[in-house]
């Protein structure tokens, strides 16, 4: 089954028991010989900062505001993501055992 990566961008992801986790904002992949394996999906607001490569801008502001909230990036391994219906991606695990990418 073929999916358009750019259309997956920004779609909401729900975990195994239907809880909203966040939006897909980035895909981590590895070059493997002639092809490119998708390793993990990055979900959450600060994944956007990753995409804009704006950490050098955001980190000082974060230090000034001393806010912890920004750290909500989830790195979902490809095995835990069920993309059978690209419009409603679902996790195969509950959101609490997701580990933080940071």
């Amino acid at each position, binding site marked *: *089954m*073929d*999916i*358009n*990566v*750019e*259309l*997956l*961008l920004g779609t909401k992801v729900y975990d195994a028991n239907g809880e909203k986790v966040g939006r897909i*904002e*980035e*895909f*981590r*992949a*590895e*070059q493997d010989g*002639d*092809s*490119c*394996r*998708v390793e993990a999906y*990055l979900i959450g607001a600060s994944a956007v900062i*990753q*995409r*804009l*490569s704006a950490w050098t801008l955001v980190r000082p502001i974060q230090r000034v505001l001393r806010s912890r909230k920004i750290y909500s990036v989830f790195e979902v391994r*490809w*095995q835990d993501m069920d*993309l059978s219906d690209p419009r409603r991606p679902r996790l195969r695990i509950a959101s609490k055992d997701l580990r933080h990418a940071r």
Partner: protein
Amino acid sequence: MHLIRDVLDKQLIDREDCKMGRASGLIMQLGENTQPRVTHIVIGGPALWMRIRPGLRKLSTKLAHLWGPKRKEPVTIPWSRVKTVGKDVNLDVEAKETGALDWELWIARHIIERIPGGGSKEEE
């Protein structure tokens, strides 16, 4: 490598360092429970307008058929052709053969070369 930040919308450069448009989309192949792989880079209009409003795909393909180079399916480059992913994405392809430059050649031949001083495509 981050797909969106490092590949999507990046400038595509062919073997002879000539610009051939930007990556409008990426196609990911999903097996039953095999690891997903990015198989193709998509270039060209329809994929772009899809990202603004899905309904625009039909409209843009219809418009493209009214005039200009007749091309059915969008231009896709197999990922195996990707040489390096840096500030730009370098591809081991010949730009003209991939069809990415159809519009460029069509406008060059039908409009630009008709105007005096427009210069001419030496190869043709």
